[in-house]
């Protein structure tokens, strides 16, 4: 228990010197909770049209107004993370898993001799080709050729992002494979495969983790974009991109609420994920982490003398006006 308490104190101190990290985690948490507990916050159904109350401006009964077929926009906006976050997180995790796994092997075998070298060279050139594609058109074509469904949107996101992780992991592994502990592992009799799995990949994961959160943000944008052109999640499933698309014509004629609210929710969520990504980058990068530790120390010394007694003091100092 004291360990958890210490950890919480550290979190509070970091939040004091880097408030935007706190903002990022708060946004992500709110988005996840909104999705999970959506039925608690709204009495309306997210997919039932009510033709007698269409295009109503925001009011006490409908906080964000209603759309062209009379669905409550607030309800749909808070239900949307269920779809958007699930697709984005699954797609990103899948691409990170597959991309970094292949990248580790490509990096490990990229020097030396034999078939494996040629194979890893071929993989890199294939990655070149995939990355030369215009991302959005590539994603639409993927969804179109595998048939439009939530699973194929996940697959398209995974496919489009995998080369990023492949490159990241390859660069890391190429530096790590020269380390002594890798030689030691090989001398001790572990196979290449086991060495990569047990000793190289765990030591090369940091930049991948920092990339993950930023990538979830991109993936949300891509999901919404696909749905916006009608190649992703189909209406009436509550999804931010397709909601914005539904409000397109209303926006031009002056009813701003059907598009503005889901777009805001989308932008804020992506912003939250990029802040979280930024924080992971700071924790993982030794130079940036040193700057953070320095700022923590400065904040501690600036606190009033009573606060100098220990971490509890820092905590109370933060709560004082």
């Amino acid at each position: 228990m004291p360990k958890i308490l210490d950890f919480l104190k550290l979190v509070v101190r970091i939040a004091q010197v880097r408030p935007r990290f706190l903002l990022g985690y708060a946004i992500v948490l709110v988005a996840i909770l909104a999705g999970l507990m959506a039925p608690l916050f709204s009495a309306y159904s997210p997919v039932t049209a009510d033709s007698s109350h269409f295009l109503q401006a925001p009011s006490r009964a409908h906080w964000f107004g209603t759309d062209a077929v009379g669905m409550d926009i607030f309800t749909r906006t808070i239900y949307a993370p269920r779809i958007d976050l699930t697709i984005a997180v699954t797609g990103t995790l899948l691409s990170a898993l597959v991309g970094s796994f292949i990248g580790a092997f490509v990096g490990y075998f990229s020097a030396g001799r034999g078939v494996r070298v040629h194979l890893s060279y071929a993989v890199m050139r294939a990655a070149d080709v995939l990355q030369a594609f215009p991302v959005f058109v590539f994603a639409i074509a993927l969804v179109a050729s595998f048939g439009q469904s939530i699973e194929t949107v996940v697959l398209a996101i995974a496919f489009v992002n995998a080369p990023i992780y492949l490159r990241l992991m390859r660069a890391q592994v190429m530096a790590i494979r020269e380390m002594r502990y890798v030689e030691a592992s090989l001398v001790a009799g572990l196979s290449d495969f086991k060495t990569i799995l047990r000793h190289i990949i765990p030591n090369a994961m940091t930049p991948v983790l920092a990339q993950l959160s930023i990538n979830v943000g991109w993936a949300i944008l891509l999901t919404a974009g696909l749905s916006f052109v009608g190649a992703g999640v189909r209406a009436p499933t509550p999804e931010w991109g397709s909601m914005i698309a539904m409000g397109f014509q209303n926006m031009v004629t002056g009813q701003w609420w059907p598009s503005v609210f889901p777009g805001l929710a989308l932008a804020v969520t992506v912003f939250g994920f990029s802040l979280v990504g930024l924080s992971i980058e700071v924790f993982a990068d030794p130079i940036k982490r040193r700057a953070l530790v320095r700022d923590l120390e400065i904040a501690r010394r600036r606190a009033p003398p009573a606060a100098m007694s220990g971490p509890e003091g820092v905590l109370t100092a933060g709560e004082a006006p």
Partner: protein
Amino acid sequence: MRIILYIGRRLLFIVPQLLGIVLVSFLLVKSIPGDPAVLMLGPTATPDAIASLHRKLGLDHSLPVQFWIYLKNLAHGDLGTSWQTTRPVLEDLIQRFPATLELVSLGLLLAVLIGVPLGLASAFNERGWLAGIANFYGLGAGSLPDFWLALVLIFIFYTTLQWVPAPLGRIDLTIVPPPPVTGVLTVDALLAGDWQAFRSAAGHLVLPALTLGLINAGPILKMTQSSMEKMLQSDFSRYEVLCGMPRRLVVRHALRNALPSVVTIISVLYGFLIGGAVLVEIVFSWGGAGQYAVQGVLNSDFYPVLGFVLFSAIFSLFVYLVVDLIYFAIDPRISH
């Protein structure tokens, strides 16, 4: 001489890469379900008519043979025919690609004009209020969905303020477009001396270019800021400061060293935006190349998609080549 050798080597690598791109996109596009013959003839077509159209389109051959035929036609400059527009894809793309280029180039120019000064200003004063705004903007701009920002701008500047023309196409329907020379409407109007057409075309260009500019200023700002900060903190800058050199000179030297990374991010964005501006094109009914390709995917119209992928790949490769040549000019370490 060295430069010519370098370009020659680069061009040599481009050919297999383009071949790979064409192969992958061919396989991908061919796996999209939907039979163009059925779509062209409509639901009342007889099986005989469909079979004969298959023969005419070359769809009765096996996939490798079809690919070989496509490559052979490609060598003659024939990119196939779009069944939606019933015109050769090459003609369609030559008409639409300048529209996309016009939009993307102006958008990127705006992004540079917003991003670089803000990035520089915040790099000089890390703790000032301007740096605060720049930091927030750099993070926030990338979070905005471009198609949504486009709609918001339409609501503000068209629906509410009535400052710009309706977001439908590149020029007012009542105005006769200038005779096509470059395909870029604003330039063509100026060449023809048609002031009215120029005003209309420029008016239609404002909002989509602003959308792209506002969003893509984010990454440019971040790159300018971080590379400038790094250069000002590096050993050579500190040494110059220690030697008592005027601040103006220190900044100028740092700027020169920060330039390559700024040029890199601009070129990456340029290559990306050719296909990445699709959603903005759709919102403004721009009729550009990206929109053409998306229509193609959604309607099983294969050749426009292939043609677009090929065009944009060649364009990105061209941009990267030009950027490498710019490196030659601004980084003496490379040219020596």
